């Protein structure tokens, strides 16, 4: 069971205790809090405390040297007129809304081809999975920078066919595309989740469908997709949350400045520049909270929409 289904089941079961839970209720408080102590300290000192603090800072002007100065909603009104911020939102939305569906589509496609007891499956699975472990590293971002450079691997290959390719990462119209491609390249992790999900679909459904004369395509839309929809939903939610926070690839490929012409200036990159480049901590905090709200809204939309397309068997 995934973290997401756990969360929704907690809210559904609210207040009801199982017999076992009732029996043991209130018995282990002391032991439990001792076991939870590191986590509780972390929750207060590393997570909730800083969250409250950053909410406060978002209403202040703070540069680390002088004490924070309360400025009310100034940071947020500044965000309304900050053209670079609007641009960075556009870049991030493009990255998320193109990259995530594309990556999941490839992951699902390969998982479907890989499924049915194919010989050599473990080998293929490893080959496809490896990039998702390496994709977040600086080393691969460096490789990408070379591959999509003006005289990089891609253009060398294109030259063999007599095509003169553009400088993919130095051209503002293609730079973001090459970073999206890097995201798609790391489809291995969702692919593994899809594979696990495909194995849970009882084979008798397909047998029954075959007896009724259903085509492969019909089987896919009527059996595979509905049965896989909770997993697709899960992948979608997590990939969207994760992609909004992407940072390393854009940072390395653009040399840290989000260029060319801000075409790879991700929201997180801009936040980093404001907070840790210019030490405009108040503004950076306001941006961080804005990001949290955006991610929250996207996740909420996802959950609401899921009622119409996600199929739960139980």
């Amino acid at each position: 069971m995934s973290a997401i289904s756990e969360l929704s089941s907690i809210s559904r079961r609210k207040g009801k205790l199982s017999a076992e839970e009732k029996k043991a209720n209130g018995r282990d408080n002391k032991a439990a809090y001792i076991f939870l102590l590191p986590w509780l300290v972390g929750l207060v000192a590393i997570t909730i405390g800083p969250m409250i603090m950053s909410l406060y800072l978002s209403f202040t002007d703070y540069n680390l040297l002088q004490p924070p100065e309360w400025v009310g909603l100034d940071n947020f009104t500044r965000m309304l007129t900050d053209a670079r911020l609007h641009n960075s939102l556009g870049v991030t939305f493009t990255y998320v809304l193109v990259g995530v569906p594309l990556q999941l589509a490839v992951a699902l496609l390969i998982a479907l081809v890989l499924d049915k007891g194919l010989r050599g499956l473990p080998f293929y699975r490893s080959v496809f999975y490896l990039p998702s472990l390496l994709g977040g590293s600086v080393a691969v971002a460096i490789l990408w920078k070379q591959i999509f450079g003006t005289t990089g691997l891609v253009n060398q290959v294109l030259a063999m066919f007599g095509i003169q390719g553009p400088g993919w990462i130095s051209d503002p119209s293609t730079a973001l595309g090459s970073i999206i491609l890097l995201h798609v390249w790391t489809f291995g992790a969702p692919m593994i989740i899809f594979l696990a999900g495909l194995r849970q679909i009882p084979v008798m459904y397909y047998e029954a469908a075959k007896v009724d004369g259903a085509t492969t395509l019909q089987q896919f839309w009527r059996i595979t997709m509905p049965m896989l929809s909770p997993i697709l939903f899960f992948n979608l939610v997590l990939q969207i949350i994760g992609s909004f926070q992407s940072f390393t690839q854009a940072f390395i490929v653009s040399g840290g400045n989000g260029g060319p012409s801000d075409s790879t200036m991700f929201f997180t990159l801009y936040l980093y520049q404001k907070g840790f480049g210019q030490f405009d901590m108040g503004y950076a905090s306001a941006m961080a909270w804005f990001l949290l709200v955006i991610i929250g809204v996207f996740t909420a939309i996802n959950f609401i929409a899921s009622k119409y397309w996600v199929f739960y068997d139980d």
Partner: protein
Amino acid sequence: MTTKLETLPTPDKKSGPGKPTNHRKPKVRESRGTLAFSRAQRGKALTKHAILILAGGLMIYPLLWMIVSSLRANELIFREPGLWLDSLEMSNYTDGWSALTHPFGHYMINSAIVVIGSILGNLISCSMAAYAFARLQFTGKKLFFGIMLLTIMLPFHVVIVPQYILFSQIGWVNTFWPLIVPKLLATEAFFVFLMVQFIRGIPRELDEAARIDGAGHPRIFLRVILPLMVPALATTTIFTFIWTWNDFFGALIYLTDPDMFTVPVALRAFVDSQSATSWGSLFAMSIVSLLPVFLVFLFGQRFLIKGIATTGIK
């Protein structure tokens, strides 16, 4: 009595919630009577292999090319898209190794310190929290568990500014503490969740038996649960290794002194200092930096794939 436990079936073999179980029947070889059918089947399998080999080749080619290029003379990198090598150029490795203020091994040791600290931190703190959530009854359990799940999805940008302020005020900038201490406090909630899932699959009768023998919670945790959750601990170790080894953002913010650089920030400094003059040695060090991840992948694959498939997070 604990020695007896080893003969019991290990919990990962049981199909706990969310564990993929294979409903498919074993493939039966087609009998002679259906030769035409089996030919079609074989054709289909061949098509699949062709697709997979093509896609897999495309995925892995950039990595192979980087390895080959790291063994080539610099000027060839921008002319040679193929994988054949006329001669081995080891100078990229020797040059790259000593291109920065310190030999590259220095940064690898720094990374190793952070990785080991993070692994120990995650193993201890997350397993303790997981034991409480999975086995103990206490006030506020549902609330805390819900919060724990939510923190998995919390973007770290919301806490990074105050965390930075906090750690810089206690003088921890340019030390490894800001990268390790949060792990000691179980802030990587993903692993808590992974372990909770695993502990739930361990039969409660074992705890009961130990309790009847007079064991308290610390003893049950150490002698019964921990030895049985080794697969979950292995998954945690491997993921922590890879994520920490690749972590760029944290190191970028907290480590500004070249003495303290971990591998990702050292590589980034390398990119900045060389800017397209010595791609060979840059590639060479990139490969050196990916090697530990690759080795961990090679030997820990089983745990990685099980970990993703059961909890569904990359």
